[in-house]
């Protein structure tokens, strides 16, 4: 259609930065308005307006240590959301499949790890300890590979070139299959993650800052570090290796990639396997913070609003989206939740994402959609 080859003058700021500046401006204006309202006495203490718009911020100011603690918890939750979302993005980029099962793969992989460790130590009589834990880790990795291979063989290959909704439905089916299978093999009881056996730190440190104490779990620090290392590793892998280049080619166009001799099937197995490894790492981190069971399913679904925010194809989007959702959710629950009777964590993430969507349907980092016919 309109393939006019004129290049636009490069704007000073990238669109994403422009958007950030705009958002910050709006927030600043709102903050100023609130301060003015409170100062002018239009919003007396105890009124609904004061409770919603002013009191939470006054609390933040008065108890900075609590604020730091909340922010830190939000950050850690955000990193974990980002990791799940990263698995989605990997698969979506390479195969155009919106892998609804990614969240369940997190639980499934963690369950495989813990379950096989349990079987090895309790039924086969192997000694507990690091060696067996690593053996269990190998089993879990192998399982994720088999899963990737089977998914490619059984689900993806026959459905190639179907539209995205059908692919989505297929992965929803996969989700249910994995839940049933996982519970069937390992039982439905919550399990405890083998954190110490895997050599992960377990203690916590308390900092005295800002006139209060901030409690930081070592595990959370480890999670943040491991997540960063893994994201950097993946970025390197995609940017500089042969497979990474093939993968980006597949993401752009299946047909063109096929025509230059890239094997789609091989790429898909690799991508699903990589997503499986990401899921395993996420599962370990998450399982260490709570128990491992399919109750995590609900939390795994929270990666979806993260994706909405970040866009389905953007790795930085997944990270930023994860942090926004994680921090937004913890702040919302901590400071505004009590006004609504608590428990708003279950839906706040979705509402935040929905709010963003209404203003930027293409997500934070997506390009503006031009519809053609």
């Amino acid at each position: 259609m309109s393939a006019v080859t004129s290049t636009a003058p490069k704007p000073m700021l990238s669109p994403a930065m422009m958007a950030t500046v705009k958002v910050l401006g709006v927030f600043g204006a709102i903050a100023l308005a609130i301060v003015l309202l409170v100062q002018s006495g239009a919003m007396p203490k105890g009124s609904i307006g004061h409770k919603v718009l002013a009191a939470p911020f006054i609390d933040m100011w008065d108890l900075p240590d609590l604020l730091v603690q909340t922010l830190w918890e939000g950050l850690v939750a955000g990193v974990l959301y980002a990791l799940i979302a990263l698995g989605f993005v990997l698969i979506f980029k390479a195969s155009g499949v919106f892998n609804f099962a990614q969240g369940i793969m997190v639980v499934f992989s963690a369950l495989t790890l813990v379950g096989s460790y349990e079987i090895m130590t309790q039924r086969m009589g192997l000694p507990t300890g690091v060696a067996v834990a690593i053996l269990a880790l190998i089993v879990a990795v192998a399982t994720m590979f088999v899963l990737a291979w089977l998914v490619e063989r059984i689900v993806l290959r026959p459905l190639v070139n179907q539209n995205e909704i059908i692919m989505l439905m297929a992965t929803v089916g996969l989700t249910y299959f994995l839940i049933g299978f996982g519970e069937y093999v390992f039982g439905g009881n919550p399990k405890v993650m083998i954190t110490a056996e895997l050599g992960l730190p377990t203690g916590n440190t308390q900092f005295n800052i800002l006139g209060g104490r901030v409690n930081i779990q070592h595990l959370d620090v480890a999670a943040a570090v491991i997540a960063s290392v893994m994201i950097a590793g993946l970025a390197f892998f995609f940017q500089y290796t042969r497979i990474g280049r093939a993968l980006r080619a597949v993401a752009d166009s299946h047909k063109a990639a096929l025509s230059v001799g890239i094997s789609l099937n091989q790429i898909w197995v690799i991508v699903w396997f990589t997503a499986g490894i990401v899921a395993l790492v996420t599962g370990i981190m998450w399982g260490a913070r709570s128990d491992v069971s399919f109750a995590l399913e609900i939390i795994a679904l929270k990666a979806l609003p993260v994706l909405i925010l970040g866009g389905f194809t953007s790795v930085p989007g997944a990270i930023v989206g994860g942090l926004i959702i994680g921090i937004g959710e913890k702040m919302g629950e901590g400071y505004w939740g009590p006004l609504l009777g608590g428990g708003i964590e279950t839906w706040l993430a979705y509402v935040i994402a929905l709010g963003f969507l209404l203003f930027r349907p293409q997500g934070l980092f997506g390009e503006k959609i031009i519809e053609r016919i």
Partner: protein
Amino acid sequence: MLHVSPQSTSAAIAKGEVLLNVENVSLRFGGVKAISDVSFDIRKGEVRAIIGPNGAGKTSMLNCINGFYFPQEGHITYKGVRRQKVRPHEAASSGIARTFQNVALFKGMSTLDNIMTGRLLKMKRGFLWQCLHWGPAQAEEIAHRETVERVIDFLEIQAIRKTPVGRLPYGLQKRVELGRALAAEPELLLLDEPMAGMNLEEKEDMCRFILDVNQQFGTTIALIEHDMGVVMDLSDRVVVLEYGRKIADGTPDVVKADQKVIDAYLGVAH
């Protein structure tokens, strides 16, 4: 054959007068200029061709006319009403129908249902009657079915009436698409490459239908087509676009002789 319903005829515009006037329209996507400063008019009752090399902005032009894109500059006057921003459904209800470059049929529905969608705007019975599907709603449905059957007869597609359109060959799909547009009894019919990908026979059929529509029903037609033979035979006047600009406008003979047009199609020696 097709009766023209009262709301789509406006006696104000007689044959030969300007039905649609495009004035200095420009359209940009971000930094890319798809159309720059194009003006032309379409007169009532004529077959107007829009031609040009690939990427000249022809389809974008049609998209502007029926409200799918909003031009940043310029105006489009339709039936004497100048409009800055028109919504697609407003354009449709004011009597503009179109077909698409890549067949845009409703793949899950039968030929009959596809053509019936062309009558949607003319069906008025409300939600409750629709629920009951009885009395006035059924009578309305049958009345429109009769009109649709006339379109089906006209296009000679009786045999595929109940076939899901996804299973039809390409040439027939294009014909069904024309049928869907005709069922709306449009005053202005926009055809985007109606003959792309057809063999000679199918092209001849399609030409015949287009001419019949134009002559029997008096429908004004704007046509994008790459087959120059077809364009020169069918159209009364031709506008030529290149890189989003108008480079020529006039009768087929004038355009054919225009040096800029020849350059655009054959290239210029540098």
